[in-house]
């Protein structure tokens, strides 16, 4: 029997305002991303526009995974299966965004470094990070009993998140690589980012995050309906 969600989550899940906002932000990102003039950096030239898509998708994935972590923790505390459903769907969307991030990264690499795959530590560790979450999905699917699947999945999700963080942030910092932000390259980080680019960058992050969460929320609502139907069939 599925218990109800808390009010904040259920309000957010069914609300519309942030979904409209996602559309507006992404339209703005695409238009401004291609029309607003960008600073010219050596080698990067106009491809720096990919920043709005590649980096922002990764940040969106990170935020989605953070949400998934929070809901896994809430599930372990409350034992309400609905929270685990939210966590699982968030991971699925995050894995999808991770693949998109890798693809946009590869396209960018092809035009700036010359190769699709460069054996670059950040690229490789990003791919492994996505593998971690694929393993989570495999784990979840390997069990039939929903409560067992939820509990074990939640435990692995929490463990995997910290492994994911260490992979994504610690390893590239120490390695030398061509990727901006590690080794000797200038990071396109907070202090270096041109303020014109920031105007598109932050809204883009929000836009992708909200789009991802919107996709997740539709899947979550479908799962809730399925569970409800399954429960009422058996009773």
């Amino acid at each position, binding site marked *: 029997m599925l218990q109800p969600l808390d009010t904040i989550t259920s309000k957010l899940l069914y609300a519309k305002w942030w979904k409209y906002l996602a559309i507006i932000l992404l339209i703005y990102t695409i238009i401004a991303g291609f029309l607003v003039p960008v600073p010219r950096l050596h080698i990067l030239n106009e491809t720096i526009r990919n920043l709005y898509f590649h980096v922002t998708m990764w940040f969106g994935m990170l935020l989605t995974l953070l949400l998934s972590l929070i809901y896994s923790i809430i599930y372990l505390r409350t034992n309400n299966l609905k929270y685990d459903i939210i966590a699982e769907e968030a991971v699925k969307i995050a894995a999808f965004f991770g693949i998109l991030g890798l693809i946009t990264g590869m396209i960018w690499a092809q035009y700036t470094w010359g190769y699709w795959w460069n054996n670059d530590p950040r690229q490789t560790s990003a791919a492994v990070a996505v593998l*971690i979450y694929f393993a989570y999905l495999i784990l979840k699917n390997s069990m039939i009993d929903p409560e067992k699947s939820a509990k074990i999945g*939640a435990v*692995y999700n929490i463990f995997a998140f910290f492994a994911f963080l260490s992979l994504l942030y610690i390893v590239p910092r120490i390695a030398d690589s061509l990727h901006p932000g590690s080794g000797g390259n200038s990071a396109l980080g907070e202090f270096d980012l041109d303020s014109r680019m920031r105007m598109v960058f932050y809204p883009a992050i929000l836009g992708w995050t909200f789009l991802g969460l919107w996709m997740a929320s539709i899947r979550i609502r479908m799962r809730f309906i399925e569970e409800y139907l399954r429960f009422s069939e058996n009773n």
Partner: protein
Amino acid sequence: MILKETLALLQKELQLEWRQKYALNGLLLYIGSTVFVVYLAFLQIKPTTWVTLLWIILLFTAVNAVAKSFLQERAERQLFYYTLASPQAIILSKMIYNILLLLLIAVLGISIYSLVLGNPVQNYSLFALTVFLGSTGFSLSFTLIAAITAKASNNATLMTVLSFPVIIPLLIMLIRLSKVAVLGVEDLNLNNYLITIIAINVMAFVLSLLLFPYLWRD
């Protein structure tokens, strides 16, 4: 209280192991065969290859070692322990047992490895420290993953699938640190590597201790 339970459980594990030496012999055979296959494939290798192959061998052995420690206990006995000891004591005793087992296997394995493929290590103390930290790290991370696998489906494949992506950051750091030890070069990032490895170990330890009670309640 937890410490007493941990020591008692640890003593039980060590005694059981010492009577039959089932896991120890199995792992020794495993690492011996792997080293021999590597030797026959390569015959002579450069120091950097030596290091990388060693860590790959230790990694696979560690996955097998820790998987065995969880997957070979029957469900009825697990229920028995559940009623007696606290979950923190159980996982703590398993982690310490795995650390000791892995350290022993690593020492013996590296001896065989050096025997057939040479020993290009320049900085012995740093190398010993790396192997110690590595065995500890493997044990701490894999114990929780093995517990998850045991609860999920008792499947060895699942254990491999879950553990490999998770252990890669630690593995990269270990290989880098041992390259410094083997080649004897001065590396500015040395302290960074050590701190990162220790941080990953501590993180795995704390997470396992916090998360295992949720797994155990079944």
